[in-house]
């Protein structure tokens, strides 16, 4: 990438975002199906979803087909005579047992998938997610970094009642934040979700799950993101007036870039911690200088 004159952090992030966002990009306007996502769990869930959808479709075709046939064939206007039979134990047993067997067939892979989701052991890192009215806070437990993530300013301006700004003119309208949740790919990340006021829920469809963020309680979930990219989600539990305006943006980076980002964030955190110590002393000096005049 020779056009990058200054390999500063911001430029790097912008380039990565621009060129690797495809797997997590916004869906086409007429998107019909669940996304396959970018984690082993999201793939499992997508496959299970398709299995159940096909089973329902086939049952629907059979049942509605029989109904349609009846409506066409067994009409009084066509001279049909009604039979008077009205029970059959054999048939009742059959159409009780067959659905039961189908349900067992669905429950087996479903049980496996659930056990997979709830196994949070052997994670590589932990991020604590705290929901507030109306923003998220992310704390990287192992790295000592923490920051708030709020709806990006362009979106926030456009979403005001009668703002006059066309949402289509805003990039990732309602799905952009000021600080992305940056994570490494191919690492098992443990997410701890909680909240500071009311119940929220943290959801990124590309990861394959959502989990409630409950004040006073901590929930555990995990994800291993297999492809670098930007993945967007939203709060998924009604939490007050701006429930629709506290999105989530996960940016998954390759190991090296993630490590670089962590370093930058650590340095910025240290700077912020030292700066307030300087200010009071300066203020005292200024006051003294003013009094001396």
């Amino acid at each position, binding site marked *: 990438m020779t056009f990058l004159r200054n390999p500063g952090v911001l430029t790097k992030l912008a380039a990565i975002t621009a060129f690797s966002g495809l797997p997590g990009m916004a869906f086409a306007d007429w998107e019909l199906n669940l996304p396959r996502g970018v984690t082993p769990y999201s793939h499992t869930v997508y496959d*299970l979803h398709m299995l159940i959808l096909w089973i329902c479709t086939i049952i629907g075709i059979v049942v509605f087909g029989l109904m349609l046939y009846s409506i066409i064939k*067994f009409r009084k*206007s066509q001279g049909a005579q009604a039979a008077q039979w009205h029970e059959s134990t054999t048939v009742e047993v059959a159409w009780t047992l067959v659905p039961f067997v189908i*349900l067992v067939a669905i429950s087996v892979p479903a049980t496996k998938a*659930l056990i997979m989701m709830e196994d949070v052991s052997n994670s590589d890192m932990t991020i604590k997610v705290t929901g507030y009215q109306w923003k998220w806070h992310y704390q990287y437990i192992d790295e000592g970094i923490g920051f708030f993530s709020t709806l990006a300013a362009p979106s926030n301006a456009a979403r005001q009642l009668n703002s006059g700004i066309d949402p289509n003119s805003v990039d990732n309208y309602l799905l952009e934040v000021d600080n992305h949740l940056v994570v490494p790919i191919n690492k098992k990340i443990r997410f701890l979700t909680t909240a500071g006021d009311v119940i929220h829920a943290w959801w990124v469809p590309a990861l394959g799950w959502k989990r409630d963020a409950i004040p006073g309680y901590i929930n555990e979930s995990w994800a291993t993101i297999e492809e670098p990219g930007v993945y*967007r989600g939203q709060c998924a539990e009604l939490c007050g007036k701006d429930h629709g*305006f506290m999105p989530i943006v996960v940016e998954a980076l390759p190991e090296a870039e993630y490590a670089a980002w962590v370093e930058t964030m650590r340095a910025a955190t240290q700077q912020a911690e030292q700066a307030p110590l300087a200010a009071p002393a300066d203020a005292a000096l200024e006051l003294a200088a003013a009094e001396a005049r």
Partner: protein
Amino acid sequence: MSEAAIHHDEHHGHHPSGMMRWLTTTNHKDIGTLYLLFSLVMFFIGGAMAMIIRLELFQPGLQFVDPQFFNSMTTMHALVMIFGAVMPAWTGFANWMIPMMIGAPDMALPRLNNWSFWILPFAFTLLLSTVFMPGGAPAGGWTMYPPLVLQTGMAFPFLIFAVHFMGASSIAGAINIIATVFNMRAPGMTLMKLPLFVWTWIITAFLLIASIPVLAGAVTMLLTDKFFGTAFFSAAGGGDPVMFQHIFWFFGHPEVYILILPAFGIVSAIVPTFARKPLFGYSSMVYASAAIAFLSFIVWAHHMFTVGMPLAGELFFMYTTVLIAVPTGVKVFNWVATMWQSSMTFETPMLFAIAFIVLFTIGGFSGLMLGVTPVDFQYHDTYFVVAHFHYVLVTGAIFALMAGAYFWLPKWTGHMYDEKLGQLHFWLSTISVNVLFFPQHFLGLAGMPRRIPDYAVQFTDFNMVSSLGGFVFGLSQILFVVVVVKCIKGGAKATDQVWEGAHGLEWTLPSPPPYHSFNTPPDPATIEGGMR
């Protein structure tokens, strides 16, 4: 004939007229009419709220309402539709039809019946008045989860007390129905000869008595948390917000079966009538209804799969939830078997009943999908859920209510309704309701959460389609009012039996039936001949 003459001779005392008649009536037909008219008004109020919702969601960006008001619209729309439209409508049908169906002169507790109804306008005045209060109507969802619901302002106690009153009305109505059916059946009307509408209402009544007190407990705990220093749902005080969800949904799941079971009963009356063939598998239908009711008590946590339950809990509720598909499927298969080798005509009640079977089943499929926990982690709190419950409640419960109304309007009024208008109402409703709700499945799968007033631009097209369907559907319901008013005023004279394939005690009475019917029980031979 002689029935009317006996009625005339025994007529004692004056029936008040005008306002006093309706305020003090203890007559099941009058009270049924009151419930039905009340529910129709509530249906339009709830519908107007839905129109506001769909108007705002027509395009991305906020054009009409602010987010707080939008949230109060979604909250109130649900409360009004569930507690003001559907439940009173079923109670109205029960009041009108159950005494006639069992050969009884009235309900067991006629004065309680009057109070059960009149609580409702009072309760809804309390609830709807909150729209005009400072702070506005409740906006924490009809599910009232704490801590959010405790941020409700002035409207909060009105919400709680309105829920208490609605609940009391339902419990009293349920007691009345059970007492009536168990004690006042005419000789020869054994339990296994009862029309399925009576059976499904018996079961519904037991569900109400078991579940509404739990709702009362839950909202009372909200009240004390807000005003009396308790901390049932506050972690800081040693409580748990999730406990509310458990208690609420322990009521909430049986509640949805309360909303649908009478619909099953109505469809089980209509299909055999217009197919001219007995209902297939009567006893299975009774047992399946009872099985659904029993199972409905052990599935509640499927409404809260994402709260962070232990794995064992998630698995248990997944298994019990998918299991409900079995008895529900049995019912659908039995209706289809009734249609098989029958001789059908397609008057408006039958059109609505057939649409119910198809569209409720689609709602059942999305319900099955939602019940599979690991995938529900994607569907939960999205428009996929909204699509599911609107299919089972609108094309389910509401369509069955329409079917029942068209089916029994001639009996109630003595006039045939306008069949052409009825069919127009049916087709407009059916096409528009699918345009309204089917795209919402896609929106949910594509990632649109629930209860948001504005959305990312990739959700624009399906939202626009859905809103257009909504506007047409809403307008089409005005046609229903036209049909009803026209039918009350006049129309072709209805015979006693009204429909060629109709069987049951209510069809042995004149249309309209006398103010007091079955003052003497019907001849047991009629019962034997009238039921298959």
